């Protein structure tokens, strides 16, 4: 712009707020903001007035009161005399557990299905299309209920394992698959077991260093060191040695049928399995499409160029295509992770004690504090979602195109 048309400095008049294009947009934005605040204030005041009229008050005292109900699967100590806050904590941890497990498996399923859908093998690619179309087009609640119903109907009740002519038997005498859940052996940590664990952690660090060294050697000298079997050896051999040196300090607690149920070992409840599986396969179908989109966004020339350098197809995918495709895949992947976390609130349908089932379900019901509980729930889901978003955004920055 030339300075010819600029108005004189210092001649601001009130009418310019409406007439001058430089200020007009600010004026309208300001008015809109004031209206929005007024609306919110009106809704808030209305809520408080109606609550007061109905004789209700907002109070969080109920959080300290004993909850009075029991929860079947808890990762922290809990009984019916624990407070409602403790019950909410149990719920939060259960939500995080199922969300974490489902994010992991959904990613694995999604990446495999997405790559396989682009396979030149007709059968494989069609099978994957069928998987994606079936699973993402049926609501996840239906999948959760279907898997849970299948589990309870098809798997045997613990009673079937009883007696001399039992109709079911345990796998290796250590694993029991029942319609109440899967029972697996639990490790028992004896004295000296810390040494074994420490050795294992050191082995993992050693593997990382070995792999870095192998890459460095490859870049500097072109010598290709094997990575497969040395990795396995470093991981297993020292730990195994330490295990026997310390005199087998880690034992196994096998589940066994006692009374009505299996006791001992670790119980993975049927609700958790149903929810975990359903969320994984459902969201996996969406992730598969993201992965396919990401791969197809890479120009075909990249594949051809890599092939002309003599790289085999598997290496083309791992070294050339996928690293570039990640830039396209990560942003929608974040929202899929958020979806998993939010969809885990369907847990109550199968009786899994997540935060919606404990704080937003039983506690809300027994105390009648609906507004307080729902506000807490919203705050929790918002916090979790924003945290996942933040973490994934950091990762996205790492893989995104660096312009120098």
């Amino acid at each position: 712009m030339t300075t010819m048309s600029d108005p004189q400095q210092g001649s601001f008049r009130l009418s310019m707020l409406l007439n001058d294009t430089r200020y007009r947009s600010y004026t309208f934005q300001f008015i809109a903001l004031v209206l929005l605040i007024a609306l919110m204030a009106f809704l808030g005041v209305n809520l408080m007035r109606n609550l007061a009229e109905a004789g209700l008050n907002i109070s969080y005292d109920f959080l300290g009161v004993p909850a009075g109900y029991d929860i079947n699967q808890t990762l922290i100590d809990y009984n019916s005399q624990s407070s409602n806050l403790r019950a909410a904590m149990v719920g939060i941890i259960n939500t995080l557990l199922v969300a974490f497990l489902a994010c992991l498996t959904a990613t694995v399923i999604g990446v495999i299905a997405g790559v396989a859908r682009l396979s030149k093998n007709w059968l494989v690619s069609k099978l994957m299309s069928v998987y994606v179309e079936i699973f993402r087009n049926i609501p996840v609640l239906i999948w959760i209920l279907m898997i849970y119903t299948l589990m309870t109907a098809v798997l045997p009740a613990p009673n079937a394992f009883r007696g001399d002519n039992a109709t079911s038997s345990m796998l290796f005498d250590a694993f029991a698959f029942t319609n109440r859940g899967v029972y697996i052996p639990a490790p028992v940590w004896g004295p000296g077991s810390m040494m074994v664990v420490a050795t294992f952690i050191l082995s993992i660090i050693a593997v990382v260093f070995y792999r870095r060294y192998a890459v460095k050697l490859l870049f500097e000298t072109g010598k290709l060191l094997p990575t497969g079997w040395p990795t396995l050896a470093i991981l297993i051999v020292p730990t195994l040695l330490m295990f026997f040196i310390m005199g087998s300090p880690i034992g196994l607690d096998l589940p066994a049928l006692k009374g009505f149920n299996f006791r001992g070992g670790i119980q993975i409840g049927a609700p958790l399995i149903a929810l975990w599986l359903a969320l994984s396969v459902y969201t996996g179908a969406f992730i598969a499409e993201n992965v396919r989109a990401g791969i197809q966004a890479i120009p075909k020339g990249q594949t051809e160029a890599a092939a002309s350098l003599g790289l085999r197809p598997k290496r083309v995918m791992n070294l050339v295509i996928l690293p570039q495709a990640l830039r396209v895949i990560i942003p929608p992947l974040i929202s899929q992770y958020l979806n998993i976390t939010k969809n885990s609130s369907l847990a109550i349908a199968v009786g899994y004690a997540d935060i919606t089932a404990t704080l937003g379900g039983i506690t809300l019901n027994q105390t009648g504090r609906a507004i307080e509980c729902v506000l807490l729930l919203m705050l929790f889901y918002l916090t979790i979602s924003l945290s996942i978003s933040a973490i994934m955004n950091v990762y996205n920055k790492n893989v995104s195109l660096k312009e120098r």
Partner: protein
Amino acid sequence: MNKSVFFGALTVAGVLAGASAAATLDDVKARGKLNCGVTTGLVGFAAPNANGEWEGFDVAVCRAVAAAVLGDPKAVEFVPTTGKTRFTALASGEIDFLARNTTWTFSRDVDLKFDFIGVNYYDGQGFMVPKSLGVSSAKDLDGATVCIQTGTTTELNLADFFRSNNISYEPVPIETNAEGQQQYLAGACDTYTTDASGLASTRATFENPGDHVILPEIISKEPLGPLVRHGDNDWGDVTRWVLYALIAAEELGVTSANVEEMSMNTTNPEVARLLGSEGTLGEMLGLDAGWAKNAIASQGNYGEIFAKNIGEETPIGLARGLNAQWTDGGLMYAPPFR
């Protein structure tokens, strides 16, 4: 345009929110329909029949109130509610009257701001187990997996019972009775616990009801009754006295068959007052003189309702027990109509 509609809607919502607190009786009369909350389906208490019409023990109370207030037992909009949604539905004004075998407790009455208008069924929490399990007492259930409806008093009773007997259990929370039935029959839980009447009702729908027993222990008092919002005393009076009219009718020998005849030529002054041929009880409630007559004529007295829906002649087969008239050693006792 859109904005003005939005603000208009907001204003209306604000006004409605302020007005919903009182005068439910007038609202119901103006609407010409009673909104009644019932269960999502518990045979004998409230469930749609083959023709899609709701019937059952709780449904009869709804219909009796509609007959008394509106003169038409069919003028009822049934709203199915779960254990979780029932109180919100009533508090928000979505329903006028909740008849959903709900236990009368202190905190529901006082803290949740509801008024229980009476008790239409005295119940207690029990356990049902398959006969093949070989359990004869609830105290043998150490370590058992228990199916339980969430959002009910039974959930808290269960925790208390096992804690006070120092035995352990594993709860399987479920949302509806149908779900609990499925889990129980699949063997996903060893025992199903809820009010003994509910257990009997559920067992009646099984293929082989004889394979399941209800354990003798009753672990809690569960007075089940209809409820209304706290603070609208006129509406509370109307519903309370409709229920008492049904109970009093049985005591006084008034049935759906003889109610017309009794209202014409009775010599008992209390019957005459109840049926509106003497005195102004209906007017005091803000209803027609024939309010109780309509209710009894359409649904029968308390004993008839009991026998027809859940009595010993029905598949549910509940004995009167505590729910007999006080003259027969039960707890059903209506204050005098005077």
